């Protein structure tokens, strides 16, 4: 039995008065890749944004329920969302390198803003993170160049490197390939395979083939509810719910 890294109990979320999630229960296993699929507007993005309390960064957004990470409730009254996010990193749909920073500065941005000092330490962290994001060989001679000068796929791997630099235990990927070409997408999928040896990965995708390729387990969301959750193979070959079957066979969404 694998260890459970994140346990979500009765998670509800709202944007102002509009409810986006209606009581989600899910158990995410450590050092596995978990995919979240569903049609647009089903709440899958809202769901993973709750996992590191990014949801509440949107004005008017709130959430209720329990999310236990290693048994500790991240919605607890004494919890600082900043520290949650340091443990649970996130990469977004559109690559977002900081435009005023070089490649090197981008990678170490999280460390530096959190007060880490010492050139050797930072250099080492930068190289290690870029290697883990499979970007080191492409950029090692251009570290001083601006991050926005890279190609889209490289920018996204730079963002992954930046997220890895703060040594999170969980990495959330919110449709990380939707703005990328197939070759860059392939590279990121390979990367996910590599990374799940060391950290837990949750990926939101609208691309079912991608979920089938990278995820160990998959959850299907519809209208703010988790319809079905289980081993990826099972979901795609023998879905238990009629609605899941309709979705994966392309009958709606």
């Amino acid at each position, binding site marked *: 039995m694998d260890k459970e890294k994140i346990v979500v109990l009765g998670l509800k979320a709202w944007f102002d008065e509009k409810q986006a999630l209606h009581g989600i229960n899910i158990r995410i296993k450590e050092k596995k890749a978990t995919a979240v699929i569903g049609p647009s507007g089903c709440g899958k993005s809202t769901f993973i944004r709750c996992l590191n309390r990014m949801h509440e960064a949107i004005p008017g957004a709130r959430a209720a329920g329990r999310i236990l*990470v290693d048994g*500790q409730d*991240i919605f*607890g009254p*004494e*919890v*600082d969302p*900043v*520290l*949650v996010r*340091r*443990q649970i990193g996130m990469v977004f749909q559109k690559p977002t390198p900081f435009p005023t920073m070089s490649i090197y500065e981008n990678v170490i941005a999280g460390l530096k803003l959190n007060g880490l000092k010492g050139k050797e330490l930072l250099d080492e962290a930068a190289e290690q993170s870029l290697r883990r994001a499979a970007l080191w060989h492409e950029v090692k001679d251009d570290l001083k160049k601006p991050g926005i000068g890279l190609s889209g796929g490289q920018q996204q791997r730079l963002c992954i490197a930046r997220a890895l630099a703060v040594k999170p235990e969980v990495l959330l990927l919110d449709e990380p390939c939707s703005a990328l070409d197939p070759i860059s997408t392939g590279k990121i999928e390979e990367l996910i395979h590599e990374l799940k040896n060391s950290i837990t990965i949750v990926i939101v995708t609208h691309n079912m083939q991608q979920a089938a390729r990278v995820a160990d387990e998959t959850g299907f969301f519809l209208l703010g509810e988790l319809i079905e959750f289980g081993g990826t193979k099972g979901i795609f070959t023998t879905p238990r719910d009629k609605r899941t079957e309709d979705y994966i066979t392309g009958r709606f969404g």
Partner: protein
Amino acid sequence: MSIIKRNKGDVWFKTTALLLAASIPFIFLLLFLLLIWQSRLSLRTFGIGFIFNSGWDPVRDQYGALPFIYGTFVSSILALIIAVPLGLGCAIYLAEVSQSRFKEWLATMVDLLAAIPSVVYGLWGLAVITPIFGLSMMSAGVLLAIMILPTITSVSREVLQAVPLSLRESARALGATKWETIKLSVLPPAASGIIGSTILGLGRAVGETMAVTMVIGNRPEISGSLMAPAYSLSAVLANEFAEASSNMNFSVMVEIALILLAFTVLINGVAKLLVWKIIGHNRIH
């Protein structure tokens, strides 16, 4: 790693930013209250008659703001009469007619007019305009016209550019000439914005101080002739505010400032309502 710790930095930061932001309306209110407070003596003594009375003799404590109000409005309206046709024509030329590269240069030149200090306009007015019209209402009007030209031109131009292209194209497709196109399908939807730009120009003219002070002649009389010297609200403040000899004199000066402020706020408010309808709120002017 623990996730439990209160982060005080954010609260501090947000509070500091809010306090600094809130200092703006605070200053705004303080300014109004201080003006009202310091003009209380004049407000109480003269009441509403102050703005209809034209006697002005500080030595005998006789005060009436009418000559200044008259001067301010006549010079400003004179400025509008000259600047609106020119500014609107220039805006139409820039937005609708010109295709040349010269156009960007022209637009920049007109905008640069707005960057030149008022006192330099005044100096130039003394060298070029007063030799023609003397120290008079007319000189002030002409100089103000030049000063508000950039405002009218650039706001009208933005308003014209906000009119959808499809309106022009449908008129052109019917075989309308350029003039007919503009008359029939561009000017009507832009009308309220153009009026807004005119009123914005009026607001600027009313508040303008140094250049007017230097060429208007500074005589507190209401004369039928535009060639006669006159006085304006802003000019009397520039000349006499610091020289107020008695409490009453000072209080009267502050009330004049209050009247000037009330006029400009009112005028700008109306203008912005008209312009915002067309080009949206957040613009820097």
